[in-house]
């Protein structure tokens, strides 16, 4: 057992209001430079929709992630020899137009335009070339555009839905959609790392954050093609790739990443989980329908003495193990089995989990009165406005049963709380529900509290990063680093001359 720690994340989609505050917080800190204007390390998509970059989930086009090959798996687009042969031109690399051409407006024209009969306007100009341009796409171009024949209809997740299901999804005046915030998944089996010929990408051993060493990057661009989530980006100005760093400078000082910190709907949770790194290859190669279950299995119980023993033997600090015991991600993913990975079929073992949105019709309006159809609570899951198959395509590699289990748990908690506080649901019904989902009243209460009333410190359980140990071990003498300035060793310390 090779026990490692991973800073892991969970997004509760029922709480996401699609305000893009997370995206803006990230942009202002990390991607406000030339060459990165088009990058959104954090973005929020409307589902059903085509997303950003357009149709990123269409792996027939982008060839991201892994695919099974005999007993194991291989990179879909760029494995070893084939990859190197394509180094001069990558067949599946997205280009700037698959994202959007970044632009600003020529505001100076508002002031400098010569006097005339017409109002001066600020025309859009490209942030790349500075030329006039027409805006055809943006980072959230199909925001709220469910039902659109141009956008939502082209969502790759609709592929195996029946016509009836699609019709229900896009029925006028009953249109349905939800938001899907996305950041780098900091995968356990990252395709970006595996694809980099230079070895510039790596996973940090201590916390599992996937980073990119720009001093090693040589712009071979394989990471951009290989990441099935399209969360590594190419900086066209510096000629280096960049990606979400999970705000590690903030984490190392005990603050949650900016997108987490700024989340208005408080949908985001962060905490450390322990996992067994020996299982990565075996579990990533498993049959499609087992991926979610096995990934959950790979996450270890931080209270198990054997796990603790192995973790400590592996150099996981006891304070990190303590932190893992309080991790909200551990609870939602492992203990309660309610959070699911996004597109597990890409086989990168993503460590960002989602609670799928509960969007079935729960009540109906009759004579202006909202009626809860108590009897139909369970049945209504099948009449849900978002077809189960659609959610399954997103979160369980097509396995409807696993999504249903999660949604039933969400419903069970709601029914339990409603019967307690409003008292309009038959107790027997609640009991049936609890029995079916295997939840106890205590667990329901705990889920409810962590969903609806969590404090800042309950949502973000940040393990101590222990940079103090790292600095000492880096070169033996911590004083060597005292006079350094800047990030990443770009700045030399002021040394006495010869």
């Amino acid at each position: 057992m090779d026990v490692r720690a991973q800073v892991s994340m969970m997004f509760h989609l029922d709480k996401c209001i699609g305000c893009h505050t997370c995206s803006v917080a990230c942009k202002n800190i990390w991607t406000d430079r030339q060459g990165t204007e088009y990058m959104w390390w954090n973005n929020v998509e409307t589902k059903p929709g085509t997303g950003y970059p357009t149709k990123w989930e269409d792996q027939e086009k982008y060839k991201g992630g892994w695919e099974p090959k005999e007993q194991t798996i291989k990179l879909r687009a760029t494995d070893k020899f084939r990859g190197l042969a394509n180094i001069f031109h990558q067949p599946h690399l997205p280009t700037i137009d698959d994202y959007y051409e970044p632009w600003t407006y020529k505001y100076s024209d508002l002031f400098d335009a010569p006097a005339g009969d017409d109002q001066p306007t600020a025309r859009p100009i490209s942030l790349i070339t500075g030329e006039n341009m027409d805006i055809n796409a943006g980072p959230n171009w199909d925001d709220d555009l469910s039902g659109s024949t141009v956008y939502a209809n082209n969502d790759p997740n609709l592929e195996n839905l029946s016509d009836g299901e699609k019709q229900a999804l896009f029925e006028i005046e009953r249109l349905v959609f939800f938001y899907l915030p996305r950041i780098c998944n900091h995968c356990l089996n990252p395709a970006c790392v595996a694809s980099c010929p230079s070895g510039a990408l790596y996973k940090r051993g201590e916390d599992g954050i996937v980073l990119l060493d720009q001093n090693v990057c040589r712009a071979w661009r394989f990471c951009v093609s290989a990441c099935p989530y399209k969360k590594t980006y190419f900086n066209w100005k510096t000629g280096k790739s960049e990606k979400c760093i999970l705000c590690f400078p903030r984490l190392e000082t005990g603050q949650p990443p900016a997108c987490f910190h700024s989340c208005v709907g408080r949908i985001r949770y962060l905490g450390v989980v322990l996992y067994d790194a020996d299982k990565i290859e075996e579990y990533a190669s498993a049959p499609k329908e087992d991926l979610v279950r096995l990934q959950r299995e790979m996450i270890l119980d931080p209270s198990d003495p054997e796990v603790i023993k192995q973790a400590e033997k592996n150099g996981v600090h006891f304070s990190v193990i303590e932190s893992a015991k309080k991790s909200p991600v551990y609870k939602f993913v492992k203990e309660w089995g309610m959070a699911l990975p996004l597109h597990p079929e890409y086989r990168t073992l993503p460590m960002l989990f989602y609670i799928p949105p509960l969007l079935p019709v729960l009540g109906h309006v009759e004579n202006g009165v909202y009626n809860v159809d108590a009897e139909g609570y369970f049945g209504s899951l099948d009449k849900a406005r978002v077809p189960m198959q659609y959610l399954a395509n997103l979160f369980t590699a097509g396995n409807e049963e696993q999504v249903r289990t999660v949604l039933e748990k969400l419903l069970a908690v709601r029914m339990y709380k409603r019967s307690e506080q409003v008292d309009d649901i038959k107790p027997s019904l609640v009991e049936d529900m609890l029995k079916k989902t295997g939840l106890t009243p205590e667990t329901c209460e705990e889920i409810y509290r962590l969903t609806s009333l969590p404090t800042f410190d309950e949502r973000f359980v940040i393990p101590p990063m222990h940079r103090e140990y790292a600095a000492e071990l880096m070169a033996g003498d911590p004083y060597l680093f005292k006079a350094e300035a800047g990030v990443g060793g770009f700045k030399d310390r002021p040394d006495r001359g010869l």
Partner: protein
Amino acid sequence: MTVDQLLYGVFPYVCIVVAIVATLYRYLTDRFSYSSLSSQFLENRQLFWGSVAWHYGILGVLTAHLVGFLIPQSILWWNMEPVRLYILETTGFVLGLLALVGLLVLIYRRLTNSRIRVVTSPMDVTLLVVLLIQVVAGVGTAIFYRWGSSWYSAFAVPYLWSILAFKPDVTLVNNLPFVVQVHILNAFVLVLILPFTRLVHFLSVPIKYIWRPHQIVRWNRRSPIIGA
């Protein structure tokens, strides 16, 4: 000292010394700047026709030059049979032509595409000009002075070895045709400007990728972090 001695006896050393010192200096002090600076992200279609043709063409030609340089006898032996000579010459010529066409596409793309112009530096233009001269001179030699593979091994290679032995034998090359002289001298210019251009990316051929494990983990607390 004659002009020939200056050009063929001194200039090569200047180029080689500058190239080595400047390349090392740049690598040690500004590793961030080492990049192929790919522009595929901004323009995809033309790059395919340009970059693939150019790289495969020039790699083939360079390999032939290298083999001839390291084991000239092998080329001379191969060329003993006329049929084999024709095969080698034709292959070389086609590869050279491939490189030339690719290079022209790349130059056209760099000059006409407004997005690509934004990421074009003066040194990129310089490099393209030097490369164009080099390839045109090389292909020109192949057209006008046939069986270059044989006399390359007989004249240019001994000259190159004489430079390495610090006893430059100018007489081997100073009477060669003009195009060939341009080809030789321009090659040293290429060496000279190497560390000041994006050409340094060929020094970081990621061959290690083939045998390295897929996943890389860096431990802050287990091993010293020194730039990989």
